[in-house]
């Protein structure tokens, strides 16, 4: 019993220690943002790596999620004779919840894991140490542009996910199931509010972008420099960022849509 408590205590202390290290790490990264913002080419390169290269999975997933929403929504709404509200259901579901959340989960799997592996491998092959010895701070030169790129890319990807999803719902609802096209778009236009729905969705995706990218770059930088260490760090990135996204989504939803 005592041993179990000791183990639990040690694990708790280790978690708090890592949390503290993660915050100090982020303070150093944020200190490098003004300098790196002036070197926009570095950020653009990373926006391409984490954002543009994630586009395919985001667009394809958005399309299928929208199509499934169209099908399920129609089957439910038609029982109440409210199938013309399908546009509202699809758009609000995507803009408020599914767009930011699902694209953040996909972003964690596609870009987050890549960021962790890349930075972890740079550490393992002493590239980060070499930079330090060249008097170049890797937190500013390597981590800060990737962090900034993650925050810029996430809301754009979420917006594309939602936009493609709406067209997926339109294709199923209007194209295949015969919902009136005018009703689909006009009811959507009436019900979706720019501030309450779209802005809040954008805020959510920015918060998720910060959380996922922070976890990804920290796990890469803090990895044990071995093959197994990188593997564990990559897994931790995907698991922890997914949990962080779901937890933050609950808190933000409670605050925004009460």
């Amino acid at each position, binding site marked *: 019993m005592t041993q179990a408590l000791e183990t639990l205590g040690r694990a708790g202390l280790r978690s708090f220690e890592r949390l503290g290290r993660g915050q100090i790490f982020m303070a150093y990264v944020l200190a490098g943002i003004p300098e790196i913002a002036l070197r926009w080419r570095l950020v653009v390169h990373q926006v391409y790596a984490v954002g543009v290269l994630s586009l395919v999975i985001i667009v394809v997933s958005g399309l299928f999620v929208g199509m499934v929403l169209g099908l399920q929504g129609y089957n439910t709404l038609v029982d109440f004779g409210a199938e013309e509200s399908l546009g509202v259901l699809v758009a609000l579901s995507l803009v408020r919840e599914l767009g930011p959340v699902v694209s953040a989960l996909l972003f964690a799997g596609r870009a987050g894991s890549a960021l962790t592996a890349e930075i972890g491998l740079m550490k393992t092959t002493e590239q980060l140490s070499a930079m330090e*010895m060249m*008097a170049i701070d890797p937190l500013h030169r390597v981590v800060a542009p990737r962090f900034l790129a993650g925050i810029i890319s996430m809301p754009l990807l979420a917006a594309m996910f939602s936009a493609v999803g709406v067209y997926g719902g339109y294709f199923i609802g209007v194209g295949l199931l015969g919902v009136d096209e005018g009703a689909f778009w006009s009811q959507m236009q009436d019900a979706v509010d720019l501030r309450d729905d779209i802005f809040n969705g954008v805020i959510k995706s920015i918060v998720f972008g910060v959380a996922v990218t922070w976890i990804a770059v920290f796990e890469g930088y803090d990895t044990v420099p071995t093959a197994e260490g990188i593997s564990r760090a990559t897994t931790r990135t995907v698991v922890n960022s997914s949990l962080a996204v779901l937890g933050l989504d609950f808190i933000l939803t409670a605050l925004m849509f009460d």
Partner: protein
Amino acid sequence: MTNHRLSPQTINDPLVKIRGVTFRRGTRLIFDNVDIDIARGKITAIMGPSGCGKTTMLRIIGGQLRPDSGSVVVDGHEVPALSRRALFTLRKRMGMLFQSGALLTDLNVFDNVAFPLREHTDLPESMIRDLVLMKLEAVGLRGAKHLSPNQLSGGMQRRVALARAIALDPLMIMYDEPFTGQDPISMGVLVRLIKLMKDALGITSIVVSHDVQETASISDYIYVISAGKVVGEGTPETLRNSASEWVRQFMDALPDGPVPFHYPAPDYEEDLLSGGRA
């Protein structure tokens, strides 16, 4: 760029002065009250068996690790007491050649050598090009400027890393196991280059290695480290004639001696007869 003009008194001062350095990793004592001087413009070797902490010593000199106690002075600066900014300013005058080369894998050979110049200077691209080509010519790899690091052999990677290390004309270069895993030709090239850096550019060199013959052939002074202490020091000739058991074992590559062949373990017979209970 660095100003290398020094007063006569400064020239006689060691560039690196290590006094009473003690360093632990967890409970393991790596260095116990170690004193080392690195003379300006000379090649000083730090030698010793694998795992004795040679690379750790380079990291302590470069400020990547902080000793538990003692003093590390580089060109008049107490390294462990420097702020991050001051440490980075000092590092612009240090070069380090890592065992793996540590080239940036997303850049080609040219861009790797240009990297410190682009980061630390406002030189026009045409001048950076000339400087990079000069550095690559010095290591014999001007023709490989468009290759990526994964197209280079281990020896070529280290030569590119050396070109990068001298890009900012440093005061000193630290070589971490430069000869490990090299074929005889690559090893000969690296030996020649390290000597050339000293003779032609007057760069102070610290070579950490366990390759006795190659290192002794170019060193002006050698420190032998074992079990956390300096167990021998002197010119290569002095060490070859040393009576110290520690130095003899290392210089003559004897498998057993003060550094035991066996890692500390319980009694062999008891271990075998315990049936896995131990």
